[in-house]
């Protein structure tokens, strides 16, 4: 007897919504068991992870602060993922974006440069994009896998960051800490909600979401991307240029990650430091898939993952969990989502014929 997966003719909207919810429930149940087995107060841990972020205005604003980069990067990546262009190096593009943006305050530390902030954001965006396009060039010209190239570029980007922070860009009055000078006031993003750290990068992310929604749903380019992802041969016969889709996918992914990197140094960090590379680029891949590669879904999933980060912080205090418990949660959530998603999109069929 063989077991086969048969794709359902149409996945109902109900099913698309059920998959993530089911995944979240399964993740909670599994973590409850895991935390209990490790002797941690499971109930306290889950309460901290899932509810604490929404119980105070301050922690909620922190959720919004983290949502911005995750949402922005994930929207950029999802464009490529739909066309089967797997840019997994957003982390590197994010770091390069942060570095390019930081060049202005590092060389003009008194803030005596007109248009400082716009220059930083634009430079960050272009830097991130250029870095991603290295992979596009190698893929289209030589056929080198963009998965591995973007990954390697990320590891190189982190070394570039280390080099700058330990060498030429180190703050001379920073007590030898690997970080740049504190940025002047006009190099910082305006705060969106008074009294919190949430800044206008959230607006960038929301604009990007609207843009990708319009592009994917109502524009010919989005149609080409989706076709290339679902049926590469059909896209080829229709005359869509595969190299162009690769360039477009990587360009948007790098651009978004670059802006997010620039916003991070011009936002909550206020300087370039090693902790800029904390894995937003990798988490955004999870966000993109959890959102079903759908622009609206990604808005929701970025919010959930970001709430988990804040919840994880409070779980370290109240339940004695390590910060990495958030990673356990993220990993499980994506795993269960991929599982439930397929089971909802496919029917399991038992083939009782004996193979001839």
């Amino acid at each position, binding site marked *: 007897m063989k077991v086969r*997966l048969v794709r359902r003719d149409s996945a109902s909207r109900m099913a698309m919504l059920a998959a993530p919810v089911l995944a979240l429930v399964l993740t909670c149940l599994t973590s409850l068991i*895991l935390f209990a087995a*490790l002797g941690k107060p499971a109930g306290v841990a889950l309460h901290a992870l899932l509810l604490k972020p929404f119980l105070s205005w301050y922690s909620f604003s922190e959720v919004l602060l983290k949502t911005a980069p995750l949402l922005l990067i994930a929207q950029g990546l999802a464009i490529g993922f739909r066309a089967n262009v*797997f840019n*997994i190096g957003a982390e590197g593009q994010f770091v390069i974006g942060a570095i390019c943006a930081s060049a202005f305050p590092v060389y003009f530390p008194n803030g005596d440069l007109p248009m400082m902030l716009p220059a930083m954001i634009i430079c960050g965006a272009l830097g991130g994009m250029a870095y991603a396009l290295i992979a596009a060039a*190698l893929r289209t*010209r*030589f*056929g*080198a*896998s963009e*998965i*591995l*190239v973007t*990954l*390697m*570029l990320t*590891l*190189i980007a982190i*070394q*570039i960051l*280390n*080099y700058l922070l*330990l*060498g030429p860009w180190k703050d001379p009055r920073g007590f030898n800490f690997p970080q740049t000078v504190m940025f002047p006031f006009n190099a910082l993003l305006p705060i969106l909600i008074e009294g919190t750290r949430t800044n206008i990068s959230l607006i960038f992310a929301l604009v990007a979401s609207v843009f990708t929604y319009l592009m994917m749903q109502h524009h010919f380019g989005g149609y080409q991307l989706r076709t290339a992802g679902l049926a590469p041969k059909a896209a080829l016969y229709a005359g869509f240029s595969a190299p162009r889709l690769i360039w477009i996918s990587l360009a948007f992914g790098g651009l978004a990650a670059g802006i997010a990197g620039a916003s991070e140094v011009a936002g909550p960090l206020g300087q370039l430091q090693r902790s800029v590379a904390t894995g937003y680029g*990798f988490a955004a*891949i*999870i966000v993109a*898939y959890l959102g079903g590669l759908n622009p609206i879904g990604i808005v929701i999933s970025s919010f959930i993952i970001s709430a988990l980060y804040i919840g994880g912080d409070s779980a370290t205090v109240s339940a004695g*969990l*390590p*910060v*990495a*418990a*958030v*990673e*356990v*949660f*993220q*990993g*499980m959530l*994506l*795993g269960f989502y*991929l*599982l439930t*998603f*397929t*089971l909802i999109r*496919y029917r399991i069929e038992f083939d009782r014929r004996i193979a001839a």
Partner: protein
Amino acid sequence: MSGLEFLLAGTLAAALPMLLAALGEMVVEKTGLLNLGLEGMMALGAAIAFICVYHSGSHGLGFLAAAFAGALLSMLFAILVIGVRANAVATGLAVGVLGLGLSALFGKSYESLTVDGLPEIGLPVLSQIPLVGPTLFTQDIVVWLTILGTVGLWYVLNRTKLGLIISAVGENAEAARAIGYQVGAIRCAAVGFGGALCGLAGAYASTVYTPLWADGMIAGRGWIALALVVFGTWKTGRVVFGALLFGLLSLGELTAQAVGVGLPSQLLSSLPYIVTILMLTVISSRGLKSRT
């Protein structure tokens, strides 16, 4: 210890975790899959091995448990990618993130504790060779077993029917299925083998190479292993050569920092990745030419 002895003795030990993980991943990739979760599987293996060795004092038990843990985690990848055809890139990352998280969770109460390393065993005659003998031919048992295992793996992949089947599955899954091979089962076994080797790699890192537990101690070795497979163009001998080269580089990086060479150590750290991109480009462009 002189500089030369330090390099000789250290290179093998530094290369070993990367080599084990890369050999495992090479087999996985030979069957046509790409598992990006190496870093996580290694971290989980490292944590499990450390905990086992800490409580039992037995390295054998630690390595066994680590291999089992790595294989178990890799089965998650197998279920999702082979079983329900989920996207391999996303699944590999999920497995990696999960492994990193679990290792930190399990290892939390063992932070900065230490265990005993393994005694070094000198090969009878060879270790008597003046100058290089005492350092090069005196290594711990895992090194000797790995060398044996690597030769064995080369033999299986290149000289046996099993090796042929593995290549057939990777190169043309449809054809392999048509002549009656269980493609799914073979891939599953390869993924499990890769996971087990990653677990062993982690175990070596946490209980022999630096016998202590610290969160994040795998420190990118999984990503280097991934690079190594490409660098070695999916051939056992070249992967071994690459691992030794990368091991030497990582030692060179430490030495450069200690001696304070003018060359930034970050450049040395980046070299494996830069070389991998170049290799990838060369290999892929050859592939393009032969296809057109």
